[in-house]
């Protein structure tokens, strides 16, 4: 839920900045479909059946790309960039948090 909201809001801002024309509600609605491949997790009820994380991530990303492209009527290059921006932002945030933790740990330890 939080991931979907964050992705949608960041992607919406990026898409508007890139010249997109879609609204926030349609962006939220279309990007919600990114979670659709997770239905495959139902199969993992059976022992030893496993759904690949890469499949869910990449399929979700592709759906997100199409959602942004269709809702904001963007050319494919801009749609790819807009789709990647939320992931890049999350990666940047994680790196920042890890760096802050590493800095604090190096400076003062756990005390």
């Amino acid at each position: 839920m939080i991931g979907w909201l964050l992705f949608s809001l960041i992607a919406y801002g990026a898409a508007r900045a890139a010249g997109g024309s879609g609204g926030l509600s349609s962006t939220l609605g279309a990007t919600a479909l990114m979670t659709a491949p997770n239905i495959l997790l139902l199969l993992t009820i059976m022992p030893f059946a496993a759904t690949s994380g890469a499949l869910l991530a990449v399929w979700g990303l592709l759906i997100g790309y199409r959602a942004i492209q269709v809702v904001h009527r963007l050319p494919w290059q801009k749609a790819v960039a807009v789709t990647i921006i939320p992931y890049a932002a999350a990666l940047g945030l994680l790196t920042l948090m890890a760096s802050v933790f590493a800095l604090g740990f190096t400076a003062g330890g756990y005390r």
Partner: protein
Amino acid sequence: MSAKSYIDLPGQRSKVDLLHWQTWTPTLAQIWAACRFQLDDALDPYERKRVTVTMRQGLGLVMILGLTAGLIPMIANLWLAVPMGAAVPLAQLANGAAETLRAFTGSVPLDIAAHTVQTMAGLEPRMPGFFAALLSAIGMWLNWPLTWLTLWIVYGAFVVGIVRIMGAHNTLEEYYAATSFAAAPLTLTGLAPLPWIGPLATLVGLTAAFVLYVQIVRYVALRDIGRTLLAVLAPIALAIFLPVATALATYLLTR
């Protein structure tokens, strides 16, 4: 308007009959045409000069063929696990240990390891042994279409990205719908448990699937065989190069 009509009337959307099997898979004639590398008949049977197969049909095709290919391995797994009354991976482990023991007699450490594995396989499972064997065999059967789906979507995403950069204009849906046909020859890999014929069928299936994939990418996205081969091989090369480079870098840094 009929769901089978290909005339688009303005303001009218054709209804999709979700319960009709053809909504979820292409026809057998199309699958057979793909196996014979006749891509016009497979991807554009109505001669509309574009790919008329849908991604929904492609998804159904991959799932059904994956399940079909997994049938013989599932029977082989049941054959092995049911008499032992153990889950399939444990039964396979015990079987492998027995074969190793037969091949290398007299090695004490190997003997200990093999007997430990066989004892583990013989432990009473939480549920009745038959159900443990049956459910684990079904679970491993479901892994066939799931693995094929992963290969189709993840590998396809890399290739479609490269062909787009190379200037192709196909849509994502067209690309995935068309490349799903590469699963047809891959069905031969399901014959792997059969003695003698199994390895040959696997080799033929893998080779035919790769050649068909290249032909489909060429048909759908790029007309040039050189660039098509580059687009198809680049993700494979990257998948091999990256772990090797990472391992080498780790070795050099920690030496």
